[in-house]
């Protein structure tokens, strides 16, 4: 099942771990909030994606089925 990475912006407080752990898909804007690449997550990054989702202190990062 194809899944995409998304940020719940109401939960995100700009810790920035996701950009460190997953620079292939996440960059930070000028205010410290994540910009997440659109589209399905490549299989090769599965492990890093799962880690980023688990490690987010605000639990704001989510893996959701592509709509």
């Amino acid at each position, binding site marked *: 099942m194809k899944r995409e990475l998304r940020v*719940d*912006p*109401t939960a*995100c407080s*700009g810790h920035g771990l996701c950009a460190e752990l997953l620079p292939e898909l996440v960059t930070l*804007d000028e*205010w410290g*909030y994540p*910009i997440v690449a659109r589209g399905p997550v490549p299989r090769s990054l599965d492990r890093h994606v799962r880690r980023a989702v688990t490690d987010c202190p605000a639990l704001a990062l989510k893996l959701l089925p592509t709509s």
Partner: protein
Amino acid sequence: MTYGTTVPYPSPFPGPQDSRPAGLGPARTGTEPPGADLPRLLPVHGAVPVDLRTHLSRYAAPPYFGHPGKLIPVLKAAGLTGRGGAAFPVHRKLQAVAEARTQPVVVGNGAEGEPASDKDKSLLWISPHLVLDGLQLAAEAVGSEAVALYVHRNARLQERLRAAVAERAAAGVDLAPVEIIDAPPRFLAGEESALASRISGQPAMPRFKPPRVFERGVVGRPTLVHNVETLAHMALIARYGPAWFRAAGTPEEPGSMLCTLHQADGRRDVVETELGTPLRDLLRLEGTQAVLSGGYHGAWVPAADAARMTLSNEDLKTAGAFVGAGVLVALPAGRCGIAETARVARYLALESAGQCGPCFNGLPRIAAALDEVASPRPDPRAVTDMIRWAGLVEGRGACHHPDGTTRFVRSALHVFREEIRNHSDGRCVDPAREPFLPLPADTALDATDWS
């Protein structure tokens, strides 16, 4: 604010004399369907509120189907789309909620947080029973017994609606009891998930999706949310059938709708008109430089283009605009479009719920940059900064507040580019800056303003 039933400027338009083409089923009530002529939602004779007795004598009782789901194919044939701004096909929402496993909740959305829009308040004041009929029919269609009407914070209006609901309950007209719920006077209060939050007992702030409210809304239950005008149309379609509804409007965008018109001379009216009506029949375009369509999340259209367009998404889309909830503003020539946009952008920034970093960081910066551009000899970086920030906020909020605001601002940068050049030279078409676009007097200052 006026509750006008003015026939559209400059003259009433003719409608087809025969209301029902053959082959699309008989009317479902004992009373004769009205012709396809307008008005349909608002009474013919002025802004006199319709009481229950008059309503029942004109329309008879709501034509309940006796079984959930039966209304849905009728609405599908009619092609009714939401009148709250998003224009989503109504039957699809009903279908999604009707299929839910748990008991759904049905809410009529009369929050009308858009300051430039009066049509929902007018409809609720003048024809509440059409809205309440639609609410009951929708509840029956999805098998719900939990029904609410979410109403803009106005004591007199809410009082009148409570009385109307009580009268209907006493007369046995309604299947399910209706709770009138107060909506805080915030721009975002009418957003679906903000509505669900508010009715669940929290502040009226939008939530992240998924899940959408039709899956998990009020207190986690599947929730059907419809604009009050949409419900009124439902009440009539259930009685007179899809063919009657389609006798007005265009094949792609059928039916009639309520519009809030702001004329260049300052007059403000609520009218009912067909989709596909030429804009020049609604707004007096002489002496107008630009038209704002779709409210403060809509877009500016130069008057010359607007003169060739009709009230339809097909036409308005070509200018990056849309019909939305029918707000049409004619900006007079001799006003500074940038200054007006800057005022509204500041309001929109302050109406941010403050939940999402990109929104509460980006929108105020965009508003400040617009203030700069509205000033004499503005810093040339203001426009480039604004465009960068617009790109940064789009799609990154929990709701469409950032997207709508940037749409509005981008259209202003395009339509009023001459005026921007003027400002660079130190000139302005209207140094006096008398405000034109309507905004509420007070702004939200703390948490109590969101509850």
